[in-house]
């Protein structure tokens, strides 16, 4: 027997498969195309790409718990909303420093994840889906009731976070911040899912009873993952608030959580670049289908059904298959 290299699940994932190559290409295009468009005066595309990039960050954080942890959280949009309000509310009081906004967004969404996760993770399956959704709706109604901060009418952010060396009033700089963030988040996720922690998270997804029997407090590990995912989503929310300049409780509604899940599933749950592909694909489709027809949600639904029935690995899995990996 030769001392074969470690070819466990993780190292296999690490080796650059067609899915990862495809992901790198998508990531590269996401950088080059919008900047090129900006240069040639097509400013719309830069904004569009910024939105894609921010939602890709959020979808990546959801994938961490959904794809790797098997935790079907239906309340992920709440973290985004909380992160956005952590920019909006201080800005409302003329507190403009991004070095306040961003740590606040991360801390507040992490705390929300800690409290709601501590309760939600005591449930399983469909109950977990319902309870995460219920907590998100609670956050939604809370912000809806805060008339001081606009309530249902939303809150306009008159000046973006002051975050040197970035000047977020300059759109390319906001885009670049989002893009660098996405790359960092992807790298972090890649390390995390391949680490000992990631092994435990995946093991608990595969067979929780067994993981407990071999000595893991699966609850504690899941809670940690839930908090990490919430914190990253909150950070994404802070970027989104800066991007839109206008935030409403609607950002937290369960349909937004559903959109994020759709991105993860269409792109490929449990893959490194899947959620990025999902975010790109969904926002592109949304944009162009909505131009063609007011019934643009119908083909969307059909696409989701087709993905779940015929292409479980999503876009990432499709690339893997076409690339002869599976």
């Amino acid at each position, binding site marked *: 027997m030769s001392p074969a290299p470690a*070819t466990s699940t993780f*190292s296999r994932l690490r080796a650059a498969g067609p899915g990862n190559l495809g992901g790198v290409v998508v990531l590269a295009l996401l950088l080059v195309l919008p900047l090129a468009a900006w240069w040639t005066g097509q400013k719309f595309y830069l904004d569009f790409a910024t939105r894609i990039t921010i939602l890709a960050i959020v979808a990546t954080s959801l994938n961490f718990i959904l794809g790797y942890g098997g935790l079907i959280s239906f309340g992920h949009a709440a973290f985004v909303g909380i992160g956005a309000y952590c920019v909006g509310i201080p800005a409302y009081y003329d507190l403009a420093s991004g070095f306040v906004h961003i740590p606040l967004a991360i801390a507040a969404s992490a705390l929300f994840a800690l409290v709601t996760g501590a309760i939600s993770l005591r449930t399983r399956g469909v109950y977990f889906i319902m309870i995460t959704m219920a907590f998100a709706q609670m956050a939604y109604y809370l912000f809806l009731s805060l008339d001081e901060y606009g309530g249902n009418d939303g809150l306009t952010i008159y000046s973006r976070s002051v975050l040197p060396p970035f000047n977020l009033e300059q759109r390319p700089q906001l885009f670049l911040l989002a893009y660098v963030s996405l790359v960092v988040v992807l790298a972090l996720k890649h390390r995390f899912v391949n*680490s000992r*922690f990631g*092994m435990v998270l*995946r*093991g608990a997804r595969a067979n929780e009873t067994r993981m407990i029997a071999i*000595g*893991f407090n699966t609850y504690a590990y899941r809670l940690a993952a839930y908090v990490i995912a919430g914190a990253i989503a909150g950070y994404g929310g802070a970027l989104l608030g800066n991007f839109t300049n206008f935030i409403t409780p609607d950002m937290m509604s369960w349909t937004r959580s559903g959109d994020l899940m759709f991105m993860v599933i269409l792109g490929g749950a449990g893959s490194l670049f899947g959620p990025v592909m999902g975010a790109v694909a969904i926002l592109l489709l949304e944009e162009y289908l909505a131009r063609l027809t007011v019934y643009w949600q119908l083909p969307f639904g059909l696409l989701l059904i087709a993905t779940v029935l015929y292409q479980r690995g999503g876009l990432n899995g499709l690339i893997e298959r076409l690339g002869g990996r599976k």
Partner: protein
Amino acid sequence: MSEPLLVITGLAKSFGGVRAIDGVDLTVEPGEVHAVIGPNGAGKTTLISQLSGLLAPDDGTIRFAGRDITRLAAHRRAPAGLARSFQITSLLTGMTVLDNVALAVQARQGHSFRFWRPAAGDRGLRDPALAALEQVGIAGRADIIVGALSHGERRQLEIAMALASRPRLLLLDEPMAGMGPEESARMIDILKGLKGTAAMLLVEHDMDAVFALADRISVLVYGKVIASGLPADIRANDAVRRAYLGEE
């Protein structure tokens, strides 16, 4: 004389009026193989589930290595030296054979809130995991996904995962379940090879296996131990024959 490794006293568990375990007393000495036999529904799996902490007893105490573990959380029992295998194969599906065992190794190496270093190339996990696979004879299958294993190999992996915890006591819940004669014979050899590594509480239907492995046998019927003793005594015991072996 020092206390036995495992001391079960007056253990009881009811499910809606049915007394699945009804005042069981049982001990396992260090290094001993103690087999628990009994007809279907005698409460054998309930007993194992209480020992591994998946079910809370209604009454009675469980002492392990001199310490009361009756209420100890399930995930603290393997690190304490009490590992189990499952009657219905319970593996980490979708992961490789090596990953399965490496996680059991990881569990006994302290907490796993380690986010940075890749687990895959970690020799501190890989080497002990391969050693456990070697002990059950499936080291050559380390890198395949568990779904591709034969039934017999999955049963062997069950044992390897329990072994990787380096237990002082192995709880084996019907390790021969669903095996053909050849696979059973191999499993008996594997378990014989493990004698001395750890004490075992062996729940098993296969009488060939029980008489080949056990140092002591207890017979469980309707949640009660009706006889306990050396294999030869149990074979000769009339009450046992009537209740369970029921032939000749």
